[in-house]
């Protein structure tokens, strides 16, 4: 047990490092900060709520930098796209925070927040799941007909619509191979920023699908570019939390050390898989987070009478971290076995790359 002087609690360092490690794997792989998983975990460890949010946001900023460095090496970052979006994201985050304060004044924030979270995550899960299944089938059909599948297969037609909007200035994103109106990028940044600010998260789980289905980036580039966004927006959030005194830096540093190792696994694991594999994991993380949030929503709507709902919501959220890590590691192991010509389950070849 370690005494965290600023947070005012005693907590085991091992658990903080482990949390950082698991969220590092998931974040490095699907490009999310993982705030919706870490804050409940820190509360369970005994950190006060305000400290849990502050420590989480600050650790997300650091972890995203670590993962961004690795994704830069893997060529998964489009700097033009990322930097064009940053301004919109920051504006959106500020608007989202103000919207949250407004709902707080109306006395609705808890329920409104959870309802929005559940609705958005569920909608994203359904769409991502349907689209990814179609892409998965297309890869299998191509393989059967002897066509080689690329690393990325997206069957959604939305990006073509948004890429055709003729509003100047038009920007050319070299890595993502996109030519798109700057306004589309900025508006996507503002909208995802509002959601991030309002829901109090980094916003990766909204921004990654937006980068894929609205802007038209490949899944790998969406993941890398989003981590760059999270580093910037997370840094801003961390500064605000720090100024309010919500951050115990030593807790943050322990988590970053764990996240450093995890983020390497997560980022490097993207080399072994095709885009749809990442989107599957993203969609599963969304549905698991939805169940956790839905349990909390029912708990609040029933006047906080049924304590087991709150308990299960926390247990579910913590279990989600380990489940996703297990899933990612399994994919990498299957990919290695596939490369070595060993037996793998029939659904694996379409999701992994041979070299």
């Amino acid at each position, binding site marked *: 047990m370690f005494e965290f002087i600023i947070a005012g609690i005693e907590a085991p360092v091992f658990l903080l490092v482990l949390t950082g490690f698991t969220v590092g794997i998931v974040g490095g792989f699907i490009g999310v900060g993982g705030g919706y998983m870490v804050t409940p975990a820190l509360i369970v460890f005994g950190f006060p709520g305000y400290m849990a949010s502050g420590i989480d946001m600050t650790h997300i900023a650091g972890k995203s930098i670590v993962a961004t460095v690795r994704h830069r090496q893997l060529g998964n970052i489009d700097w033009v796209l990322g930097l064009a979006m940053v301004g919109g994201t920051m504006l959106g985050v500020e608007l989202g925070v103000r919207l949250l304060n407004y709902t707080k004044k109306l006395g609705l924030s808890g329920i409104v927040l959870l309802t929005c979270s559940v609705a958005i995550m569920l909608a994203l899960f359904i769409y991502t799941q349907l689209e990814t299944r179609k892409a998965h089938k297309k890869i299998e059909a191509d393989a059967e007909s002897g066509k080689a599948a690329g690393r990325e297969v997206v069957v959604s037609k939305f990006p073509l619509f948004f890429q055709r909007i003729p509003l100047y200035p038009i920007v050319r994103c070299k890595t993502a191979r996109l030519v798109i109106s700057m306004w589309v990028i900025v508006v996507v940044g503002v909208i995802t920023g509002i959601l991030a600010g309002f829901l109090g998260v980094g916003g990766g789980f909204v921004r990654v699908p937006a980068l894929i289905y609205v802007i038209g980036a490949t899944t790998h580039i969406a993941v890398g570019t989003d981590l760059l966004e999270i580093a910037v927006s997370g840094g801003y959030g961390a500064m605000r939390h720090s100024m309010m005194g919500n*951050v115990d830096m030593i807790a943050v540093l322990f988590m970053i050390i764990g996240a450093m190792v995890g983020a390497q696994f997560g980022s490097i694991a993207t080399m072994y898989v095709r885009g749809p594999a990442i989107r599957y994991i993203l969609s599963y993380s969304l549905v698991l987070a939805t169940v956790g949030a839905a349990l909390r929503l029912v708990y609040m709507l029933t006047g906080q009478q049924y304590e087991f709902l709150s308990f299960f919501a926390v247990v579910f959220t913590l279990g989600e971290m380990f489940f996703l890590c297990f899933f990612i590691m399994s994919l990498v192991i299957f990919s290695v076995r596939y490369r070595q010509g060993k037996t793998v389950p029939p659904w694996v070849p379409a999701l992994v790359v041979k070299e």
Partner: protein
Amino acid sequence: MSADQKKKGAVKFIFWTIISFGILVYAWHSYSSGQMVAWYYYQASVDGYAINAFSFKEATKENPAVLQVGAFEQIVNLQAVPVKAGDRLPINATGIISTKDLKEGKRVKLEGDTIKVMVPTEVKEAKGFKYKDTYKHKGIKTNPWSGAWNVGIVFALGIALGYMAEGFTDLFGLKLKKIEHYGH
């Protein structure tokens, strides 16, 4: 991978390990020496008594903690220092018991030159995993520069650890290539 690239990887790994270690040691030193805490618990935002909330960790109504009031430079255990809004907090102060609370006398009472505290540092809420601070972190202002300092440290550490890991994989001949996003 050539021996030259491995050598470059080794240099990169050693350089960034030293930088990472330096940042961690600096952060650890400023935390354990109390410098970081003093930055956090910086200034009083209300009139009252600066206290170290840990000193009455187990206090209850039946078994209250009694704090000695005085103009101490450093708070040691059961001590309290009178402060006005805007005053710099003494060393080891982690919160303020406000004059308003003392007047109410429900959780704390001023008795001569002592303060009787009848609540612990933290109260567990009846439901869920939530804990509520009683006087810790209350009535204080943090140093506005602490935000920039924290973010600076976190960014510097993130970059150093990121490049350290990159150097590590290079060192072991695992230099990762850019992903072919559009090829077959």
